């Protein structure tokens, strides 16, 4: 192994170019990654980071430029070839088979034909060594996004790994989990493996990475040593101006209760799902309530019960604007003014092969898009165009397919589509997952403005920084239970972090604390 270090760079890219029919994704990119180095690739959505990584991983062929691996020129023919070389990648959109178990998914990429018990044992070994807990027998579709990410990382680590590419890995992790991931990555790098770390979170890059290459609009705008930079100086390299901030005035907190959940208990159909136990919450008009927690603790189940995708037998459990809705379907709840933004953008919130206009119709059809059962295509296109303009969605126009948009731009469109319906209650899950700084700030600002206009907003997110930035009160979900909510001004990241393990005060104390009683005041 050591003999290879004659030529210092493990991976070097020279003048990589890649164009798609509509856009130039990479324009003369140079990049050098040293052995054992954690190298950040920093840039906004659409800057060309993902395309560059796909080129390295053999998913996409560059139009021009050279890839040098240990100093020798190579063509990475396919992801299988990349894995043979020792390159592993954890995608932003995970590439796991949902109907298979963790062990089966891992076994698929391992060379030879290893038995599942053997694979499960190896997964156990890696999990323990790097602190990545996961059940090898669980079916992937039942795992949360955070858990799926662990599976992806383990899958890479089981191979003879020399370069690990991580695409926006912490978007879904709690501060503690992100810290653990960093320890894992430092440990991996310490053993000589290089890490390419794609992100737009400047604090993380400062804390973790040795070097950074910054991309903007398909070009390299600079390389730097993050430890010597400030977040602001890197932000300027990345977006070409100063970092925007959310404007978040204090909530009045005296609005009417718009969304009330009153002792919701649900047994999950899925053996790997989480049962909900006696969930109680209330969101008032003009406030944002945040639900923190590591994914897989019942958030998906709660969100499906709130949106109406799963109905609840107990009629009294959920109220929207004073009306019992627990047994109503999603369409009926939408008519009462409840809008919902799920975390899966493609395939749930939007249909990949349909145009943005047709995707606008999916939930916003009550906005005069249908007359006598017929579609009013002018109204639909007009709505989509306004949404694109008002929410600054970068795309080819209302007839662009949803799958042609980057994650951040599609999310801006989806948020815009729901906000433009003037919901009385908006339920949002992971609003800025995998979204770049600029888009994230504008999405958060839209939610705050919706609140200012009097809507009741419930945000479920794993990103604590985000919750503290936009919420008025925060509750924590753990093991299918929900804590009481605390004002953000009266708590901090550490306390919420402790609550995430299920240890909030009233569990020990027994009697319900004062703010909970107040928030549960019946309608």
């Amino acid at each position, binding site marked *: 192994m050591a003999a*290879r270090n004659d030529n210092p760079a493990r991976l070097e890219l020279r003048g990589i170019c890649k164009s*798609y*029919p509509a856009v130039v994704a990479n324009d003369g990119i140079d990049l050098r990654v040293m052995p054992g180095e954690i190298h950040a690739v920093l840039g906004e959505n659409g800057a060309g980071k993902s395309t560059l990584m796909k080129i390295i991983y053999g998913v996409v062929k560059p139009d021009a430029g050279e890839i040098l*691996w*240990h*100093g*020798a*020129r*190579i063509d990475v*023919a*396919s992801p*299988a*070839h990349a894995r*043979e*070389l020792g390159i592993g990648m954890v995608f932003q959109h995970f590439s796991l088979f949902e109907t298979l178990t963790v062990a089966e998914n891992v076994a698929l990429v391992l060379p030879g034909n290893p038995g599942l018990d053997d694979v499960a044992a190896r997964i156990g070994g890696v999990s323990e060594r790097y602190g990545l807990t996961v059940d090898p027998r669980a079916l992937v579709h039942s795992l949360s996004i955070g858990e799926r990410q662990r599976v992806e990382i383990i899958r890479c680590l089981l191979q003879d790994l020399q370069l690990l590419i991580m695409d926006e890995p912490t978007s879904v992790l709690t501060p503690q989990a992100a810290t653990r991931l960093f320890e894992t990555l430092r440990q991996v790098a310490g053993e000589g493996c290089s890490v390419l770390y794609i992100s737009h979170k400047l604090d993380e890059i400062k804390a973790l990475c040795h070097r950074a290459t910054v991309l903007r609009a398909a070009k390299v705008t600079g390389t730097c040593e993050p430890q010597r930079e400030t977040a602001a100086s890197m932000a300027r390299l990345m977006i070409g101006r100063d970092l925007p901030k959310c404007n978040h005035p204090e909530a009045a907190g005296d609005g009417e209760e718009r969304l009330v959940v009153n002792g919701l208990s649900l047994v999950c159909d899925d053996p790997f799902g989480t049962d909900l136990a006696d969930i109680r919450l209330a969101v008032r008009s003009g406030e944002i309530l945040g639900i923190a927690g590591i994914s897989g603790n019942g958030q998906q189940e709660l969100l499906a019960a709130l*949106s*109406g*995708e799963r109905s609840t037998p107990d009629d009294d459990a959920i109220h929207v604007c004073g009306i019992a809705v627990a047994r109503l*379907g*999603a*369409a*009926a*709840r*939408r008519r009462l003014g409840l809008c*919902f933004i*799920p975390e*899966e953008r493609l*395939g*749930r*919130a*939007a*249909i*990949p*092969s*349909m145009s943005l206009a*047709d995707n606008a*119709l*999916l*939930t916003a*059809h009550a906005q005069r898009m*249908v007359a006598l*059962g*017929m*579609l009013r*295509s002018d109204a639909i296109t007009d709505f989509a165009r306004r949404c694109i303009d008002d929410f600054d969605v970068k795309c080819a126009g209302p007839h662009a397919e949803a799958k042609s948009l980057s994650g951040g731009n599609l999310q801006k469109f989806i948020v815009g589509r729901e906000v433009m319906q003037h919901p009385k209650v908006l339920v949002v899950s992971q609003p800025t997952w995998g979204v770049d700084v600029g888009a994230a700030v504008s999405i958060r600002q839209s939610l705050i403005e919706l609140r200012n206009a009097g809507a009741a907003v419930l945000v479920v997110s794993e990103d604590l920084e985000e919750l503290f930035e936009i919420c008025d009160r925060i509750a924590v979900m753990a093991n299918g239970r929900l804590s009481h909510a605390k004002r953000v001004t009266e708590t901090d990241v550490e306390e919420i972090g402790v609550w995430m393990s299920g240890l909030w005060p009233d569990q020990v104390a027994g009697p319900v604390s004062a703010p909970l009683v107040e928030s549960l005041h019946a309608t």
Partner: protein
Amino acid sequence: MQLRLEPRALQSRAMRYASPLIAAALTLVMGFILFAALGKNPPAAFYAFFIAPINSVGGLAELFLKASPLVLIALGLAVGFRSNIWNIGAEGQLTLGAIAAGWVALDPAFADSPLLLAAMIVAGILGGMAWAAIPAFLRTRFNANEILVSLMLTYVAQLLVNWLVFGPWRDPQGFNTPQSALFADGALFPILIANTRLNASVLLTLAAVVVSWVFLEKSFLGYKTRVVGLSSAAARYAGFSEKRTVWVGMLAGGAAAGLAGVGEVAGPLGQLLPTISPGYGFTAIIVAFVGRLDPVGIVFAGLLMSLLYLGGDSAQISMGLPAAAAALFQGALLFFLLGADVLVNFRVRVIRAVPLDQPRAAL
């Protein structure tokens, strides 16, 4: 070495339109080889296949007469297929439509009514829908597979019409032939072109093309069925009912097939026979897919399929071509059409096993 189909990120619009032409050219090449190998003169065979059947008014009339039920049924099936509802029992629904229309036509109470034909049309549509409602109900109530149920009901429908024409509805003056009495003139579609069999039922098919295009492309219900077909999670998220989509998809297919059944018994047949359709209900499945589930595409696909049937008959008669060779030629055209279609959406990548040490050898 290994071949793999990969979805194309961007489909070529030009190739989308060119692919039927390429398929036609490949079929001609294959046909040339096939006919030459059989010792037939290829140009003469092509003439017998594609020109002779339609170089007269009568021939064209036959082309439209055969294409009409294919197109009609395929339009109805496309509604279901777009939302992943697999109704493959259109043949049975057609038979039930024919039985229901026959029941009205043979009832003396209706004999002189000016509305006899209209009543038969309504009865036929309802009959087809009723037959399609059985798999729809079993699917939505018990999650029974509609493919199996609708297919099996086809055989039940066949036995039902057999029982009727061998038993209660057998023509008393028919010397025990298993067939019903001939329908009165008022129970038949008027002939459109004198001395041909082309009748007014093709106008209903034309109307159905327009209606289905409006439904699929312009109506909210059509949009919902598309969403259910593309992503059930998105449909659940939007609150679109999957059960309703099953009903819409099945009933549209049943109504179209039932109407096609009326077109047969009130058209070229003029009575109920043990065999009402030469497999229109099954061929229409191919027509629907060759037409890419698009109403206009289905019209072309139906005409093509109709021409292939007429051409096969013509080539057998005039050239003495074996029936199997005619069927092979028809199959080749479909193979190339669907193959070209796949290649518009996918590309073939040749994957060579990369030797483990190859990239390092350069070091």
